[in-house]
């Protein structure tokens, strides 16, 4: 299952659900936010999109957890990759689409690297 490039066309609401992310290189995702704050909309929508069955199906071992707090902290998406790399996205000033695209591009880059590595091993 590869080559899932979502069509990034136009700038309307339902677009976020069309962005497909391949979660294979991801170990875990923690979405942290304070629901009573007013800057959490994009982070919460990101959480909703990540939980979509198509994206979840790309890696059943990837744990997605929501960390709901009430301490005024910033909304945050903490992605831990299988190779030890970490991506932290501060959702207060990012849109859902920007976060999904950033995650997708990193996942695709890692997938590519993996493929190149496996091609080198078995010519």
């Amino acid at each position, binding site marked *: 299952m590869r080559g899932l490039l979502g069509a990034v066309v136009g700038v309307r609401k339902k677009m976020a659900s069309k962005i497909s992310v391949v979660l294979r290189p991801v170990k875990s995702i923690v979405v942290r936010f304070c629901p*009573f704050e*007013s800057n*959490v909309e994009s982070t919460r929508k990101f959480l*909703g999109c990540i*939980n979509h069955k198509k994206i979840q199906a790309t890696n059943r071992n990837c744990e997605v957890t*929501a960390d*709901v707090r*009430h301490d005024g902290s910033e909304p945050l998406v903490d992605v831990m990759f299988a190779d030890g790399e970490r991506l932290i996205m501060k959702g207060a000033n990012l849109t859902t689409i920007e976060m999904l695209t950033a995650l997708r591009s990193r996942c695709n880059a890692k997938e590519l690297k993996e493929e190149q590595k496996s091609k080198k091993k078995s010519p």
Partner: protein
Amino acid sequence: QDDGYVRLLRRQVEEVFRDNRMIAVCQYNSMPDEDVVLMRHYLRKHNIEVKFVLNEIVRPVLSQSKYKNLLPLFVARNILLVSPETKAKEMLRVLKGVPQINLLGACIDDTILSRQGVENFAKLPSLEASQGQTAGALALLPSQTSSLLQRGSVHLMALLDQHIRRLQAGETGSPAEPAPAQSLGAH
């Protein structure tokens, strides 16, 4: 511009807030239908109903009611878990098995609580147990008063008893000891 259906939905939301003691707001992330049905079933056992709500309907209703502070919760997709009782512990137990539903906050007995607040509320003992504990604590001090008041005369009685016993022992042969008289004099 309000058509009848929108008015009906708004009235339903008002009723929900009026007729229930516990209203929990949760984020709904897409779940398979069977899981939704199962979750509804387990919550129904504790008299908790699951209601899917639209933000466009709920927001105007809340902004004109005393639940204004719940407004920030209503973005993205939400569901309400409502109940005329306040079985927070059972609700949390069911939700633990459903990772796609995230509890954001609740309004219990007209008090707005965060997620942590709900967890603390669930840990409280029942009302009867708290009342019993309070009554016990209040009754503790007066129960000590009577024994405190009696302590002096009880001690005196014990000493007199001992004195009598020793005098009787003295009559039957062993020498009488002046010690009891001295300790009596000390009081």
